């Protein structure tokens, strides 16, 4: 059987999963918490609103910490962690020769369609992560590792819904 040339350049998925599991375990062992991603963007949102409109921010529960006198929400665990993800991805991509500015999309759609879909997807993920108290990393993966019910609900809901809508979105991908 012919192997996918692109795929063969990547790490074995079980090995990658095992290493990711060890990183997650290390995170629990050292810091008592799992990994995350959407929370860092929330810190940026809260800080931005707190800076641009401090009066409005201090009057609303969601943005309150962005306008308070204390430490900036940007000085948070997740912001540092996500900066690490950015550099870690960059280093890995550099070694693998994958650094390239491009819009990746199916040949059946234009770059413009892909970018519109990506923004929409991001907006949905942003909203969903606030209801779900975290995203695929913070709520689902880290939640499953500590066997929290919320982690399993999040995982099943994320992947289940994506499967449910996969047929309708197939033009975007295949």
């Amino acid at each position, binding site marked *: 059987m012919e192997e996918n040339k692109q795929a063969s350049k990547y790490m074995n998925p079980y090995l990658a999963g095992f290493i990711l599991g060890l990183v997650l375990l290390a995170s629990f062992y050292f810091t008592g918490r799992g990994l995350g991603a959407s929370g860092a963007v929330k810190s940026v949102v809260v800080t931005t609103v707190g800076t641009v409109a401090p009066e409005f921010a201090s009057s609303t529960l969601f943005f309150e910490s962005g306008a308070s006198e204390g430490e900036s929400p940007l000085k948070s665990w997740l912001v540092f962690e996500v900066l690490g993800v950015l550099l870690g991805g960059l280093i890995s991509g550099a070694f693998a020769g994958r650094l390239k500015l491009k819009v990746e999309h199916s040949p059946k759609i234009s770059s413009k369609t892909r970018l519109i879909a990506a923004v929409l997807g991001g907006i949905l993920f942003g909203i969903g992560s606030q209801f779900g108290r975290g995203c695929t990393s913070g709520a689902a*993966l880290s939640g499953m590792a500590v066997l929290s019910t919320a982690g399993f609900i999040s995982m099943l809901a994320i992947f289940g819904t994506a499967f449910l*809508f996969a047929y309708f979105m197939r033009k975007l991908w295949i």
Partner: protein
Amino acid sequence: MGPLVTQDIIGGNWNFVLAFILGLFFGGVLEQAGFSSSRKLAGVFYGYDFVVLRVFFTAAITAMVGLLFFHYFEWIDLSLVYVNPTFWPSALTGGAIMGLGFIVGGFCPGTSVCAASIGKIDAMVFLVGIFIGISLFGFTYDWWVDFVFAGDLGRIKVYDSLGMRQGSFAFMLIAVALIAFYATRWIEKRVKKVEY
């Protein structure tokens, strides 16, 4: 005994250094696994590439089993480990919205950061989308706040929810993963390859 930072065995500011180092590995391994490509990620929903399922499931099980053993050997005090609370209506709704976001956008937040780092422009605009989405939620927070805190089950564990013993659930999860690994190999062989 861990967790070290929580018990002040490691000072508070080191926590940020640790966060950065853990992030480095997190981003590095995601990129090495191919999570910097939305078309590779989307493969799991069409059956042409199951890397997401393999990496995600292996990672969750490795960390879960690791935590159980660390607890057994008394290397970690699990009562100090953060367990995300379950507000089931909100968790279910949020997950569903995120699932739709996944199939439309092709990334989740973590993978989009990783993909943006190697120059994927679609990942960068996905991140802008997350920023907009969280802002929209924030500006309309008053509308959702009651719903977000409804159905509070506290820091409940999944085996308690299902009325199982912890060990039995862990064993079952590993069995499900192994079956899924085998079944998806079978599916992958039969689904038309997608070039990306």
